[in-house]
């Protein structure tokens, strides 16, 4: 189970706080073009959709990278681009179904949401509740399995 930033598009007003905070933290400047989260704005329907990497379980970006520059952070489950390894070939941007990975115009390398190492700034910056950080409960699966174990033992006894 990965941690994830859950998006509620109904609440997004495209204020741009997420763009500003993300680029500030990652690039040291308010630079919306260098934010890892971007809103798809459909003005005539007044719909806004913050778009970012969903940290896929079977990431296509990792499969197409010809220099193995994308790897998984085992703690947060985030997919991380190794900027020194990246050669800027853009193959990752061809396969991402969400547009969650893009190119940093400053250095020509791939950039994407890295969940800010477990404490995402965009979530804190959003004043409208459109972004929520859901942490991976590492033990969730084990807890469920333990619960099932108990019940199955009881059921077994009942059947016998």
């Amino acid at each position: 189970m990965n941690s994830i930033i859950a998006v509620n598009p109904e609440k997004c007003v495209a204020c741009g706080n997420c763009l500003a905070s993300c680029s500030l933290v990652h690039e040291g400047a308010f630079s919306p073009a260098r934010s890892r989260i971007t809103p798809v704005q459909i003005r005539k329907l007044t719909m806004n959709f913050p778009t970012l990497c969903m940290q896929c379980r079977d990431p296509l970006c990792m499969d197409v990278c010809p220099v193995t520059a994308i790897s998984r952070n085992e703690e947060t489950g985030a997919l991380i681009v190794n900027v020194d390894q990246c050669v800027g070939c853009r193959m990752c941007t061809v396969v991402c179904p969400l547009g969650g990975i893009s190119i940093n115009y400053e250095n020509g390398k791939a950039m994407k949401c890295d969940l800010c190492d477990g404490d995402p700034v965009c979530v804190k910056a959003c004043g409208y509740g459109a972004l929520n950080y859901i942490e991976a409960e590492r033990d969730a699966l084990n807890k469920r399995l333990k619960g099932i174990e108990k019940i199955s033992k009881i059921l077994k006894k009942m059947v016998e």
Partner: protein
Amino acid sequence: MDIVVIGNGIAGISAAFTVRKLKQNAKVTIISKEPTPAYSACILANYISGEMERDRIFIKSMGDYLKENVVTELGKEVDGIDIDEMKIHMSGKKVPYDQLILATGSLPLIPRIEGGGLKGVFTLKTIEDADRIVAHKPKKAVVVGSGPIGIEATVALRRLGCEIDLIELLDRILPNLFDKGPSSLIQGMLGEQAVGVFTGEKILNIFGEDRVQNVTTDRRKISCDTVIMAAGMIPDTRLAKEIPAMEMGSRGGIRVNKKMKTSIPGIFACGDCVETEELFSGEERLNMLWHNAKQQGDIAGYNTMGVEKRYPGSFSIAGVDVFGTHAVSVGKTSSHFKDRPYDIIEKFTDRGYYRIVLVDRLFRGVQYIGPYEELGMVFTAIRRKDPVEYILGIDGSREMLSRNPWLYRLHRYLG
């Protein structure tokens, strides 16, 4: 449990390290005729041009193999496979296996012409090839073949100040990736850097005393000190073909099913050496690209350990960097549909140029020249087999967009 992998490319290491991830106490061995740890063949050109240090090409260090307890037999040729005794014959040794994964890759296709063995004639497949080209210091090169490898070699050598003439048999460069229009745009970029391009031309022979001095085509003679043979790749199936029961595909690759199993129990195969079903067309074919090899290697690894993952199919995405301009081709070009009606959506934008190929109103391919960034939308439409009418219909549909907001980005390509 002995797992042996023959081949240390992306398919081989994906298989080997997937096995290790699943099972800590299996013995995993990689045998490779090359002496180095695994590297990316895709970026050899960046090393040749001097843009990248040689040690950045490697994607594994010897330490990575040791850390994961993957035994390596590097620089060792496999002489044969004994399927009855389940042993690999390797340099006088016999290596036993319980499960075998063939990841033997591909070899450059070398046209049978005179002078092919002269000093100064190279292929560009391995790091050894790249080292030899760098050491040779080409001043005037002829590149035979204008597929991605030929183009990358051309750009890399031109960056070093080498004079280049590019010979292509078909009527346009990058013939498998681009239609004539976009191909001409790319040819123009080569021309801007004083690269000579000769299409519809065939190389006849290479002349020289002890080294390359000139090349003759069916139209001209070109003096040069270097020839790069980039005329295509063929699957390396020498070991597989020696096994009578090994089923081969119609295109020369090893036939495998969706679990990467060959016709021989206990033997799997993955990467450039196999034929698989293509994701969108269902055609069984070779699809010798990095991501296909990696995915197939993972699937082979899973299946050797009894985890029955199935390979969904191969897909084609290939790009080149032409002196800083990126160009990519996804899926099929229109020339693939010569006998069927197809539609083109073509646009020049301030970002670049793109051409979408539609057949039966379905997205079948896209070619993009320029700094693309959101082609995933088109790729997804190809995968999902969304008819173009469906996408056109989203404009103004709040209901459709709230179900799949990213369709809006795809809609802009059609607009």
